[in-house]
């Protein structure tokens, strides 16, 4: 029996990019561009990613670690002002379980040197997602992240192989 709860929360993230607003906006507007940055974890290959970028259009993405839970993102676009603003609602499922519903507002402001991108998420977090399965998932994500950090370290030549093996063995 799931213990029902709904926690509303809002947060804002500001980022500065040395690119014109139109280009930052464009990075949100196509599947090809989003595939380069928009998945929760770089290492998760998407099983599906569809995007119909228009007011009333939908987006759907299924990602997740190999052999692990499916992370399902489904969005509807409510407001699009080209180069300036995007408003979409989305929900997240972990397999069959909905864990949140959110409203996201992205604004693009021209600034000297490029763009300030302001991201506001007004979300509702559902059903006390802190049961054992959730924690296990979190641990798995942590391990996946460690793998990625190690791999990136190897790629950058900052860690030699023996160090990587020792760390893998220790985890």
């Amino acid at each position, binding site marked *: 029996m799931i213990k*029902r709860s*709904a926690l*509303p929360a*809002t947060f804002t993230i500001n980022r500065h990019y040395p690119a014109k607003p139109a280009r930052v906006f464009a990075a949100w507007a196509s599947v090809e561009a989003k595939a380069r940055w928009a998945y929760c974890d770089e290492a998760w290959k998407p099983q599906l990613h569809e995007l119909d970028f228009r007011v009333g259009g939908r987006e759907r993405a299924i990602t997740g670690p190999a052999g692990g839970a499916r992370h399902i993102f489904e969005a*509807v676009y*409510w*407001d699009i*002002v080209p180069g*300036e*603003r995007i*408003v979409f*609602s989305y*929900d997240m499922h972990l397999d069959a379980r*909905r864990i949140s*519903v*959110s*409203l996201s*507002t992205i*604004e693009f402001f021209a600034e000297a040197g490029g763009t300030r991108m302001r991201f*506001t998420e*007004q*979300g*509702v977090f*559902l059903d006390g997602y802190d049961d054992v399965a959730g924690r296990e998932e979190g641990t798995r994500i942590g391990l996946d992240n460690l793998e990625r950090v190690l791999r990136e370290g190897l790629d950058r030549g900052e860690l030699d192989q023996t160090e990587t093996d020792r760390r893998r063995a220790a985890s």
Partner: protein
Amino acid sequence: MTDRSTAHATFTIERRLTVSREKAFRAYADPRSKARWFVGPEGWERSDHKLDFREGGRESVSGGPPGGLIHYYNALYQDIVPNERIVLAYEMHMDSTRISVSLGTTEFKSDGKATRLVYTEQVVFLDGHDHVAAREHGTRALFDNLAALLEHEAQAT
């Protein structure tokens, strides 16, 4: 050239309804019941209320004072837990201008034989149409309508 801006706000309204959660929830789920309390102020003209009450379903209705601005409501149901919770996203237009997009969460909590309704709205107002006080006031008026309808139904049975 429209001056672009946004204003984000959150408000919560709690209301005690003197009926069970099942009856309160039905007033949301049944299209005919919903159309009776989900109305604007007296004197407003109104279009047909359309409701497809299921996850992924849509709801729409428009209304306004005769000869005045038309308020258009268009919603998408995101999460429905029968007798417990409804989460939807909706937009408001005044004539052809989108003035806001919102997330509305309605929780039905038992309070003895009665129900405590907890409604939280998280709204982004667009381009200067920043009317959170009016939105909250209008929402409270809807709950007045709901409470009156439920009382009336309870007495009639």
